[in-house]
């Protein structure tokens, strides 16, 4: 009896050991394969039987945020790109007609999701990607696109350092935040401000903008005091006290309109008499309600990060097309996304190729006539406008009885 019991235990253990060994053996053999496997996945359909009159479909990826806090921006981007895909389909290279197929993927606005979406688009075999919506997601997915040699063109990632990270495959059709920051600073100097408070909300966009405003003000010799809040704050009494003690003639808030409204209201209530200013984050007509009455914001000034609608040659036609397709007003950065696809198509035509590497090279050379005007990209991938892309491009607005009015 005794030995059978032992036997059974021995058998059980053997099985355990065998199973583990098997798993290990499989792993080790495969490990070698993974190690020396070549990345020869990209040698797909290169059947260059480009006879006259054939039609081919190329895939363009779209990585944007259709869910999450920025879904309205993502919706505007996706819809604008759908319009663009129809408009640009049917272009010709060497007698071959190309149809554009958009692969739109949602990255939830979360940077951890961005690489997964990037991989998905690469698996689909896209030749170029429009996106990402936010600067954070752009940074998180750029290394993957770079390794695959695929260009990434964003219509809304405005953070200045994006084009300074040595990614030769990144381009954008929107203006950088530092241009807007400089424009706000210059405007404040023009108004004759001598003591300025610059306040941000510690957000990605807001801090970069505030840094640039301060740089400009410092250069002009203006006395600056910096304050900060958190996005989502409702009580700014600590900052208001500091601001009151500093007695500025101008208060610049670089965050969003909800906090701006509350801040301006609390400043007015504390008896601070200063010129209120901000960036495109406060350019919402809701700010009057958020400030507890339009009179608290009356006379406030703001800028916008894109070209003025009034100065964009193709904007009216584009806005009409957007309205016809979706029944909604063209949302923020919609036209930038439209132009991003247009620039890619123009680059493909210039290069005479639909290979990612060729498109990247051609994007540096291409001159594309889009909704925003004639666009080119400089050596690091920022959009450049003929005649110099200076701060004079930045449109200015003043808040008058409940609406932001464009200042010529």
């Amino acid at each position, binding site marked *: 009896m005794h030995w059978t019991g032992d036997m059974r235990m021995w058998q059980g253990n053997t099985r*355990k050991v065998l199973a583990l060994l098997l*798993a290990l053996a499989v792993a080790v053999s495969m490990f070698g394969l993974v190690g020396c496997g070549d990345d020869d*996945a990209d040698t797909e359909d290169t059947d260059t039987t480009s006879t006259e009159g054939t039609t081919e479909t190329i895939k363009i990826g779209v990585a944007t945020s259709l*869910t999450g806090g920025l879904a309205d921006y993502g919706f505007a981007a996706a819809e604008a790109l759908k319009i663009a895909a129809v408009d640009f389909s049917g272009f010709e290279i060497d007698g071959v007609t190309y149809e554009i197929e958009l692969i739109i993927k949602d990255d939830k606005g979360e940077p951890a999701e961005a690489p*997964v979406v990037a991989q998905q688009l690469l698996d689909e075999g896209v030749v170029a990607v429009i996106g990402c919506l936010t600067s954070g997601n752009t940074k998180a997915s750029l290394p993957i696109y770079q390794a695959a040699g695929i260009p990434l063109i964003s219509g809304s990632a405005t953070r200045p350092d994006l084009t300074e990270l040595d990614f030769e495959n990144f381009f954008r059709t929107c203006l950088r935040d530092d241009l807007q920051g400089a424009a706000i600073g210059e405007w404040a100097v023009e108004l004759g401000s001598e003591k300025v408070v610059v306040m941000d909300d510690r957000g990605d966009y807001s801090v970069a903008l505030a840094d640039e405003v301060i740089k400009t003000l410092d250069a002009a010799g203006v006395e600056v005091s910096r304050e900060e809040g958190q996005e989502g704050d409702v009580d700014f009494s600590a900052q208001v006290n500091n601001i009151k003690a500093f007695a500025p003639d101008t208060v610049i808030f670089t965050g969003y309109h909800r906090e701006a409204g509350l801040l301006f209201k609390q400043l007015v209530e504390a008896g601070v008499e200063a010129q209120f200013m901000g960036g495109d984050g406060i350019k919402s007509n809701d700010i009057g309600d958020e400030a507890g009455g339009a009179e608290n914001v009356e006379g406030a000034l703001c800028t916008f990060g894109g070209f003025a609608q009034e100065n964009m040659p193709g904007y009216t036609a584009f806005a009409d097309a957007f309205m016809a397709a979706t029944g909604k007003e063209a949302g923020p950065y919609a036209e930038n996304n439209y132009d991003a696809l247009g620039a890619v198509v123009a680059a493909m035509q210039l290069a005479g190729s639909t290979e990612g590497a060729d498109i990247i090279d051609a994007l540096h050379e291409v001159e594309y006539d889009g909704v925003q005007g004639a666009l080119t990209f400089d050596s690091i991938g920022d959009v450049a406008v003929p005649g110099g892309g200076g701060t004079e491009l930045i449109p200015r607005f003043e808040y008058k009885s409940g609406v932001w009015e464009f200042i010529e």
Partner: protein
Amino acid sequence: MAVLDRMNSMFRRAPRWTYIALALAFALIFPVLEQYGVIETLWLRLGTRTLVYVLLAVGLNLVLGETGLLHLGYVAFFAVGAYTTASLSSPRLGYHWNFWVIIALAMLLSMLFGFFIGLPTLRLRGDYLAIVTLAFGEITRITFNNWESVTNGPGGIPGIYAPNLFGWVVDKPGEFFYLLLAAVIVVVWLLNNIKTSRIGRAWNALREDEIASHHSGVRPLQAKLLAVVLSSGVAGLAGAIFAYYQQFINPTYFLFMQSTIVVCMVVLGGMGSIPGAVIGAVVLDTTPELIRQLFTKWLPDAVGADFLPGVQTALQQDFDRYRMLIFGLAIVLMVIFRPEGLLPNKLWRREVHEDDPRDQANTRQHMFDAEKGAQDLEA
């Protein structure tokens, strides 16, 4: 749900190691499937991220499942680990430290952090502990957001160098998969040993009744502190490898939502069960992607673009937008029909289903009856 129940009883009947060996074998050949083009690279990249969540869920299970402390700031320790890597292995501060040093330092720092946060807060119980840990989680994120000289604030730290393990440069998703798998195996093995040790039983006793366990010789603060410190170390490890894998981090990776998701993984997987935490992490992290693939690819490929008759075609093409809705619905259904989690441990299962006939044999009343019957027989 009956299917799940049956699977669960099958799981309990069959020897455990067969399932562990199967899961392990599957994980081991997973990257190879990608190599041969059986699965797309997407799944490998997703699987690698899932393994990070597996580490987090297994680590939180120690605090939430084993010791019964509702910890809502777990992502803070993940952030400490990630920022350790990002600061010491990127052009941001100009350091390029060794992988092993960084891993050790990341774990040590997050354990220290866990200790100093645990010391004052663990005297609190229940809801109060939840509130305080939540606040600490947010404070940590805001600190990283504001500590611009080191973390570059909201702009984050890009360009994190690939780790070098004795000459093996890990920079492909498949390689990270194996690296993380090794970490998961080591951590699960260690935690499983601790779980069945004296201290593990002390944790369970604390979870069931703190006062009674205190009077039976368990030192509550000491035991809880050990649980928090160990789980913080696991989160630090996960964060350090995650930062290497992402090559970029910024504070938005560490929002309160992330803590919540990890809590969901532990609860949905089955509190106090390591296989449960693993399954919970795998299911919660991959389901949104599976739903997306189902509606944007598999269904259209199999049935055609009009896979939901009666629904607008445009809506069907936009399914990407609705996947989180379906995901939420699936979780709600799951909580209603299987509150004890996917792979619960026995104790927790019995607590949720007090009158489960299958466990009748183990209830106190039954044992009492049997004892009495035996006594009667003797008499």
